[in-house]
């Protein structure tokens, strides 16, 4: 009877182990093969600029990123890469008030609970230029944002897919290309 029970427990652990291994394999497949959305993302994140040198577009891009408050972390001109990041405070008064109210209510109810609120955000951006044709340069930028709450836990850690963010960046880059071309 006892050995039967031990066998059952072992079986549960083996199944759990197999499940974890299967999940990890799926993660690798999802992470390292192209998804159906990758083409759509590429179109969203890329614009082609005519009649410009790669070095000029990189200079214009670095200037826009600085305009947007990013710090340049790494550059490799020979590969057309700019890596940058921006930290900012995303604390909202409404969230803080709600958090404090809920904490007070939980104390009064006899179950003190910490109610965290979003506090800091880090935006990572990698911009890559690629010569596509004679005097044509493709610029691709990817934004990624991470948010930490007041307890220091990560609450958001994902790529940015909102089209308006990319449209706004490329609109600013078009203006910057003009300014760089005219040495302004």
């Amino acid at each position, binding site marked *: 009877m006892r050995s039967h029970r031990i066998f059952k427990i072992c079986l549960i652990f083996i199944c759990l182990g197999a499940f974890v291994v299967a999940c990890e394999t799926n993660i690798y497949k999802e*992470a390292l093969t192209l998804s159906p959305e990758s083409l759509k993302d590429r179109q969203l994140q890329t614009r082609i600029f005519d009649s410009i040198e790669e070095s000029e577009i990189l200079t214009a891009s670095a200037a826009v990123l600085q305009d947007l408050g990013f710090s340049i972390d790494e550059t490799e001109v*020979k590969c057309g890469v700019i*890596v940058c990041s921006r930290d900012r405070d995303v604390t909202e008064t409404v969230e803080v008030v709600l958090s404090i109210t809920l904490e007070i209510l939980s104390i009064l109810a006899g179950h003190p609970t910490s109610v965290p609120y979003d506090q800091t955000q880090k935006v990572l*951006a990698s911009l890559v230029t690629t010569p596509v044709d004679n005097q044509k340069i493709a610029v691709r930028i990817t934004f990624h944002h991470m948010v930490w709450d007041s307890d220091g836990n990560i609450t958001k850690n*994902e*790529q940015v897919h909102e089209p308006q963010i990319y449209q706004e960046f490329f609109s600013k880059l078009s203006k910057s290309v003009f300014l760089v071309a005219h040495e302004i």
Partner: protein
Amino acid sequence: MKKQFTTLFNLFLVITLVSCAGKQQNILETSEPQVKLRSMQSRVFDITDQNRLLRTIIATFQDLGFVIDDAEESLGTVSGTKRSGYSLRMTVSIRPRGTRQMIVRSNIQFNLQTIEEPEPYQYFFSTLSKALFLEAQPIK
């Protein structure tokens, strides 16, 4: 009594030192033999243009949703991280093999664990092959 405390203190000191030494050994620890690991993480491509290869690796990283952390043409390395509820960090390095081929080597870290199974590398090289329109050949 004092002697007992001194013994106990010495015992804890030895345990602490032994555990620290163990952590330092972990710095260079791998579960797979070096040759097997290199073979699993490397592929040969019939390409000579180092810049084109590096740019294609960077484009593949972006297609896969990685954020580029670093790229260095003279060393031939690109690093990137994919964060999607997990953290998958990759470093890819390239070097010439003879006059007609390049060796591409990648290593993957999933959260805090170095990946030493062949499948994730096969997935990456398959994606890179498609981007390069070239076949990834195993290293011999």
